């Protein structure tokens, strides 16, 4: 196996009494699109900042391509970052922003101009070099930030919630573009986000963060279909947890189980319950169903049939046995 682009070992970070990162071991392969997914305060951004070199770990090591960089300053590391607020230099033009990394590394003016123009073209902003960042839209600034980082041809690109400030349409468009750019340049992307859709759509692998630890690492499909802990099941998608007596009555088993809303159907047979709420959402309708066995289930149904179930209606829920996933406890390591 080749040397991983990033290797984190026993990584910890405390801010005063608060332990933001509580022991992370992780390897990210060369050329991988890797997402760190978690709610705010789960430690994902702190891990990213330790990879970039802005935070010094309390314990543990950061290695890039097999080289220990834990003690190195940000400017001595071969990584570049796209910041959440882009941090474009307001007093420099777009072109000057993009060529900044080359300028401080003493690349001759002619070459860096050419490379900066090329980078602007690769993010579909040719001819925008003369503008000031303040004269550009949010989506354009985002691309400038991307070009400014990519022009240095780093081994690793770190992205800190780069799409957070964009509206939904633009965000979906940028998700596709980012993925294409990553495939084109072939460098490792580490993408921090709290948006599960974003993480699932774009990534080769996802790490789900929970309270400073990694709850699960896997492909989007693994994380979604086989969540390792109740936290992962709840954070990645909507999950219906069955445990205790409800699990015993309905499934005839002990433990905690999850069934995804889209795997459940309203049917003639199955677990009986009452519709508590009907939520129409365009292509789908979501039903909240209170099971007689004592659990609330979310059911997602595509709007193919005419005539919906209504509030208070008695229904039965059914699903296939293979879609019942047994999950462990939180913080199982």
């Amino acid at each position, binding site marked *: 196996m080749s040397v991983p682009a990033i290797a984190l070992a026993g990584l910890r970070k405390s801010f005063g009494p608060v332990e933001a990162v509580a022991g992370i071991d992780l390897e990210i392969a060369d050329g991988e699109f890797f997402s760190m997914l978690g709610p705010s305060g789960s430690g994902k951004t702190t891990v990213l900042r330790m990879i970039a070199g*802005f935070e010094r770990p309390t314990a543990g090591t950061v290695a890039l391509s097999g080289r220990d960089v834990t003690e190195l300053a*940000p400017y001595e590391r071969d990584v570049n*970052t796209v910041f959440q607020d882009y941090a*474009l230099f*307001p007093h420099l033009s777009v072109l000057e922003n993009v060529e900044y990394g080359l300028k401080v590394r003493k690349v001759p003016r002619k070459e860096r101009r050419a490379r900066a123009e090329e980078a602007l073209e690769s993010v579909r902003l040719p001819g925008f070099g003369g503008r000031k960042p303040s004269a550009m839209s949010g989506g354009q600034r985002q691309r400038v930030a991307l070009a400014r980082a990519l022009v*240095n041809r780093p081994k690793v690109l770190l992205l800190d919630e780069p799409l957070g400030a964009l509206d939904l349409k633009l965000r979906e468009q940028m998700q596709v573009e980012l993925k294409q750019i990553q495939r084109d340049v072939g460098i490792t992307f580490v993408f921090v986000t709290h948006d599960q859709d974003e993480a699932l759509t774009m990534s080769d692998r996802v790490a789900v963060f929970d309270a400073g630890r990694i709850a699960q690492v896997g492909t989007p499909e693994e994380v979604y279909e086989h969540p390792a802990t109740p936290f992962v099941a709840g954070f990645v998608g909507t999950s219906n947890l069955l445990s205790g007596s409800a699990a015993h009555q309905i499934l005839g088993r002990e433990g905690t189980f999850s069934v995804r809303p889209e795997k459940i159907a309203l049917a003639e047979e199955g677990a009986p319950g009452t519709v508590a709420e009907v939520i129409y959402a365009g292509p789908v309708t979501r039903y909240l169903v209170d099971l007689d066995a004592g659990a609330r289930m979310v059911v997602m149904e595509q709007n193919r049939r005419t005539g919906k179930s209504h509030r208070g209606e008695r229904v039965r829920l059914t699903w296939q046995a293979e879609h019942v996933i047994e999950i462990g406890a939180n913080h199982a390591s």
Partner: protein
Amino acid sequence: MTRWVLRSVMALGLFFIYAPLLLVLVNSFNGDRTFGWPPHDFTTQWWSAAWHNGGARDALWTSVKAGLGATAIALVLGTMVAFAVQRFQFFGRDTVSLLIVLPIALPGIVTGIALDSAWRSVIAPLGLGKGLFSVIVGHATFCVVTVYNNVLARLRRSGVSFEEASADLGASPAQTFRYITFPMIRSALLAGGLLAFALSFDEIIVTTFTAGPGIQTLPIWIFNNLFRPNQAPVVNVVAAVLIVLSVLPVWLAQRVAGPEAGASRT
């Protein structure tokens, strides 16, 4: 009705501030030696007299030197303190901030007496008597505030993310300061420096206590010559020059700090 009252009050206020200043300007061209009112003749005689007045010219030059010296010290110290207070956590940080701002509120006479006795009892025995340098130090005590306040406000607004971005792109700390930090605080430095110069230029109380023998700044020269009948017309001219020289930096400082400040964040 209230609008009308407010407007008149404002007009009255502005009148009391600026009419006397205007009077000084008009009188500097008044042909009558006793400033009879309304003026009968127009003359530029006093202006040429002032130009050839050696005492006034020396005093002007001394004031410029004192102002530049105090501004230079204020720029260096004010910037350094602003960075320390904004970028680092340390014990007594708020106290330091208060101590820096305090001299602008302290009565000049207190600062003056304190500096005078300190100079006499501590510095003069070391061999450095009072002179222009003591004036510069005295002025610097309150000039630091203007630079400190301007730079601090700019640093607060711009945060550290630009510096992190610069380091992330491979710039050493020296390169980051040269290409990013300094250009971003440049207009704040200019505004603070201009205000500092203006403060120093018209200072009279602290100067009185800190000036060595033979050191006379322009305001002091005016004060000393104000009640000499022969010099009165020339004093008017010098005062007119002083008004212009004081207004200019303040006006520039406002222009520099205004629009740039608004655009300092993307």
